[in-house]
């Protein structure tokens, strides 16, 4: 028997100095003398104790902490030093299991280990790196709540099943049992788990009645086919600790219980950090140069300042009535404007004057019924007053006025010192021209945080600055473009909650003051929506990142419905909005093309959203339908569908799609098709657990396209699974050094730092070196979480 053997081999260890039963120092002496093998077998009894008493309950909690590490199940670098604590715990378990040999000694050990535990819990928590702590707190919580409940539930079921299914199980069960029975710290009998097959018992649902199946169904035990009877005598049902499935990306994993670690990595910028930022002094101090910025289009200048005759809410806010009067100056107006809103009664001359074909195409939108009525009355009753409910107006304002910050620099200050940090120079909102040019400059050098700030300044100049939300204002095409850029950058930065807050005053983007017709003086004759189409997409997609994919889908469907209606209008020879159209054929062609691509864009967003919702069947259907709008993307779309099936585990269907890609790409010239085919083959090998062939395919891509970052990264990942850590590191390091502009990607860096952690206890220095590389290349939008330094 194993336990007997273990006890024998423990003899020398016992004779050693008592100081460290768990550590290697103690047994060393005798071993050298006798030339005994360094290893000894012992059985760790997993089921016998643990949850037995209050004390051991704690013990298990604590036991878990150092064990359940995140990616690395290993200890953290410094942990191995004071690993005595956890080793002690385990040793404790071990020796209890070993049973009879030497009670006296063991009882001493046990007591001590227990004594040590109270300290260990804390010290371990400190020693393990932060990310680990996140993870463990998770598992700890679940461990704590589970045991009691399950104890109760399990017993009846195991008797039931044991009698029915487990011939050999019964006989075997005691084998594991007696050891713990001898332990001085024996759990009270009632707590002692019945050493029977709890493995196979299912946990009855909340009602916790033993499974007398009312529906006539009988639960069956499942076991690994190659497993012999031994299993059937087993420990308790494990606590159903549902941890996030690691192997699953955001789409395929488990969103509800996703570990903080994974989300840290992906949604790194937790919103709470920034929401609180508010600087009341910031808004009034607008540089002089800004005041003219908001007004680029003709006739807009007057709008930039809050001209009471234009701002629809001033009177109302004074009188406190809930309706706003839109007072339109009594000046004579060009005749054409009056008719502009009426379908079919366009004055061709006026149109030619005021509204280019291109604008009409781009801005076309179909307002909702209520909005449409308001817009009509604005143009028809321009000599009287139009009442618009305050609720129906858009009154945006910055919700936080300063998110400037550079996480890279902060990290440098922390790890590399002030001197190094001083070298980090990135553009900020002050260092560029306070205009669209400066804004574009910030965006293209990836200083998105600074760009968000600059957008804020420009909007402040427009009167929609911090604290202006809810106050009457007016909109221009440019102010909406600025909002779009700001919100888009917030989304790109992962600051979804912030984006949501600032999006809120825009409602469903269908308020009358978001249409050109609402401002007949500023935009004479111009029609359509000021809201850029991309902003509608952003508005819809934002919800899925906030965990409301259903709302996203609803909004996308609304956008899609309008796109489809406009396309139908065009196909019937009408203008986009359904009015009689007299434009040239090529203009209509261009319009059809534009709206088809928009329809494709929104369909693709729906597919992405469905993928997030894990509705793979519908997602695949949606991606397939995108092909008709973007036929040139067919191979990419088919490959994407193939990858979806791979992620679900349906290798055969994935292979079918990849074969389709090979057929489609045969017609293509150039390398891109070839790379795609090789990439798909590599993924298929991965799906078949064949990392060697996958690596071969990725390497082949690198022969064709040495700069291919994806193939480089993926080949390195394969090498790790093949047990070639050093080679893998070399490949990734070479890649990040050769092409830092493209290859300092957070995913590649995450892989690299993970491997550093696996390689050596000195990963910190190497991560710091990466930080320096990042500092010299990346803007302030860099997601520092992937360096795993914090």
């Amino acid at each position, binding site marked *: 028997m194993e336990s007997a053997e273990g006890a024998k081999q423990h003899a020398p260890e016992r004779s050693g100095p008592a100081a460290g039963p768990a550590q290697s120092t103690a047994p060393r002496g005798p071993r050298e003398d006798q030339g005994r093998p360094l290893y000894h077998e012992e059985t760790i009894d997993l089921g016998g104790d643990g949850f037995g008493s209050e004390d051991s309950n704690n013990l298990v909690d604590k036991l878990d902490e150092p064990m359940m590490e995140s990616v690395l199940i290993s200890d953290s*670098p410094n942990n191995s030093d004071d690993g005595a604590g956890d080793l002690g715990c385990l040793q404790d378990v071990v020796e209890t299991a070993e049973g009879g040999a030497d009670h006296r000694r063991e009882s001493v050990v046990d007591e*001590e280990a227990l004594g040590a535990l109270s300290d260990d819990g804390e010290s371990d928590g400190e020693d393990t790196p932060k990310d680990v702590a996140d993870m463990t707190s998770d598992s700890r919580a679940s461990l704590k709540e589970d045991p009691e409940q399950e104890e109760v539930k399990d017993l009846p079921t195991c008797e039931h099943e044991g009698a029915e299914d487990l011939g050999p199980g019964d006989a075997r069960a005691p084998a594991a049992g007696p050891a713990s029975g001898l332990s001085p710290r024996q759990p009270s009998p009632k707590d002692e788990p019945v050493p029977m097959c709890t493995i196979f018992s299912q946990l009855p649902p909340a009602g916790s009645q033993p499974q007398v199946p009312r529906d006539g169904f009988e639960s069956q035990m*499942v076991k690994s086919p190659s497993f012999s009877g031994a299993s059937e005598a087993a420990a308790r049902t494990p606590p*159903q600790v549902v941890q996030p499935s690691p192997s*699953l990306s955001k789409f395929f*994993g488990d969103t509800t219980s996703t570990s903080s670690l994974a989300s840290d990595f992906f949604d790194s910028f937790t919103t709470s950090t920034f929401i609180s930022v508010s600087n009341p002094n910031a808004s009034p101090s607008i540089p002089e140069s800004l005041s003219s910025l908001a007004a680029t289009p003709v006739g807009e200048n007057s709008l930039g300042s809050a001209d009471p005759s234009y701002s629809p809410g001033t009177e109302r806010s004074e009188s406190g009535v809930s309706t706003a009067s839109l007072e339109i100056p009594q000046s004579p107006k060009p005749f054409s404007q009056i008719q502009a809103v009426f379908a079919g009664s366009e004055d061709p001359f006026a149109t030619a004057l005021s509204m280019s074909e291109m604008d009409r195409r781009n801005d076309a939108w179909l307002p909702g019924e209520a909005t449409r009525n308001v817009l009509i009355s604005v143009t028809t009753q321009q000599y009287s007053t139009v009442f618009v409910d305050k609720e129906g107006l858009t009154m945006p304002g910055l919700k936080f006025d300063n998110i400037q910050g550079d996480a890279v620099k902060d990290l440098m200050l922390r790890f590399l010192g002030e001197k190094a940090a001083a070298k980090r120079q990135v553009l900020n909102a002050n260092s560029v021209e306070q205009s669209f040019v400066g804004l574009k400059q910030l965006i293209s050098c990836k200083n998105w945080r600074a760009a968000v700030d600059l957008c804020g300044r420009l909007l402040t100049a427009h009167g929609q600055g911090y604290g202006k939300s809810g106050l009457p204002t007016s909109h221009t095409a440019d102010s909406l473009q600025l909002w779009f850029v700001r919100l888009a950058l917030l989304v790109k930065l992962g600051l979804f909650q912030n984006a949501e807050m600032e999006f809120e005053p825009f409602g469903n983007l269908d308020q009358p003051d978001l249409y050109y017709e609402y401002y007949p003086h500023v935009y004479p004759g111009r029609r359509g929506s000021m809201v850029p189409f991309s902003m509608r997409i952003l508005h819809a997609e934002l919800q899925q990142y906030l965990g409301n994919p259903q709302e996203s889908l609803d909004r996308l469907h609304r956008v899609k419905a309008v796109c489809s209606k406009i396309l139908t209008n065009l196909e019937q020879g009408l203008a986009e909005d359904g009015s009689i159209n007299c434009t040239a054929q090529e203009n209509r062609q261009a319009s059809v093309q534009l709206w088809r691509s928009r329809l494709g864009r929104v369909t693709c967003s729906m597919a992405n959203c469905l993928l997030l919702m894990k509705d793979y069947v519908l997602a695949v259907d949606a991606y397939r339908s995108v092909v008709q709008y973007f036929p040139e993307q067919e191979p990419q779309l088919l490959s994407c569908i193939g990858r979806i099936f791979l992620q679900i*585990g349906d290798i055969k269907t994935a292979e079918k799609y990849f074969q389709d890609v090979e057929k489609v790409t045969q017609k293509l010239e150039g390398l891109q098709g070839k790379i795609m085919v090789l*990439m798909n083959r590599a993924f298929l090998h991965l799906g078949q657990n064949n990392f060697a062939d996958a690596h071969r395919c990725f390497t082949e891509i690198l022969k064709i396209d040495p700069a291919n970052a994806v193939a480089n990264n993926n080949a390195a990942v394969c090498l790790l699974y093949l047990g070639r850590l050093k080679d893998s590191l070399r490949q990734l390091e070479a890649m990040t050094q050769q092409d830092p502009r493209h290859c300092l990607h957070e995913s590649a860096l995450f892989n690299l730092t993970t491997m550093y952690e696996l390689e050596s206890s000195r990963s910190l220095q190497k991560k710091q070196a990466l930080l320096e590389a990042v500092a010299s290349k990346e803007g302030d939008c860099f997601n520092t979480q992937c360096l795993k330094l914090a």
Partner: protein
Amino acid sequence: MEVNPAKQEHLLALKVMRLTKPTLFTNIPVTCEEKDLPGDLFNQLMRDDPSTVNGAEILMLGEMLTLPQNFGNIFLGETFSSYISVHNDSNQVVKDILVKADLQTSSQRLNLSASNAAVAELKPDCCIDDVIHHEVKEIGTHILVCAVSYTTQGGEKMYFRKFFKFQVLKPLDVKTKFYNAETDEVFLEAQIQNITTSPMFMEKVSLEPSIMYNVAELNSVNQAGECVTTFGSRAYLQPMDTRQYLYCLKPKKEFAEKAGIIKGVTVIGKLDIVWKTNLGERGRLQTSQLQRMAPGYGDVRLSLEAIPDTVNLEEPFHITCKITNCSSERTMDLVLEMCNTSSIHWCGISGRQLGKLHPSSSLCLALTLLSSVQGLQSVSGLRLTDTFLKRTYEYDDIAQVCVVSLAIKVES
């Protein structure tokens, strides 16, 4: 005694990482149009980002592989893979390194190391790498015990161990239900529920019958010459989804004839389940032997071999009965009586001797009867008496026939 033994710097560091399958990086597409303020900027940024799909940047699911981010869940039947790296952190050469990885479960201890040979020496900053694989066969707590022994330059023998604990969870919930057909066939309904947190592709769910049965899987239909699964296009099970499989089991001929054998608790077979999850992560489980209580037929079983479904009113028709001696060792001497009911009238002699019937043998009997009432009529009223034990067995409600009037039939 000290609780914490003197802290000791080890020259080697042991790191362990679980190798679940990598995941594909997903990006957040943000696009704009030519006419928007950023112009082509946003789209250019997406094109420059290596994690997007070249040529179709709006697709969320990229091609970049990302290493696992946490330990995650492991389920019974899956393969536990782990990277074990021993790194020489010191600046001296270390000799005779032996790395051993054992997995301790509640019932056994397994050695997972690929080789048990010692490595002669390890230079500074070098690694010993090992990737271990183990198909998880038990549920509950597992502890991976990694032990490293080595000799320092000074000839000192060093040894340390690390323990990594994880829980193995149950991935599936399987429930079964049996239906006994009037014939010897048995139908098995099996409900398989995915109790993991990720979608699961069921690659194979098959019933391996015991030697007494042949099995027909009833989970696909033939549509235009092609076998189509009854589960539709949804080839996978979402978390908590349940799928129902149906099987038909027929006793093999040699067992069917000796009907006595199939009685009491019989072993039907076991379900073999193979599934795959993320990027082909595979799992396989079997149920224990499924058992069913065969319906009890008593000592003498009367079963129908042939009966018309529709008969004419007041016209004789024939049925064929099979009488089987199900007792274990008793030979029977049987007498057949036929009692008329209000609607069913037996033709022929009641109380005739059927002769001796040996254990596990059967005889076929052709009987004639007619019905005097229209509608669905129950065939009842057969009595068998074993003259040795003076025991009478009654057989009522053996089958049903639809009795129609010939006159009506002609009219219609």
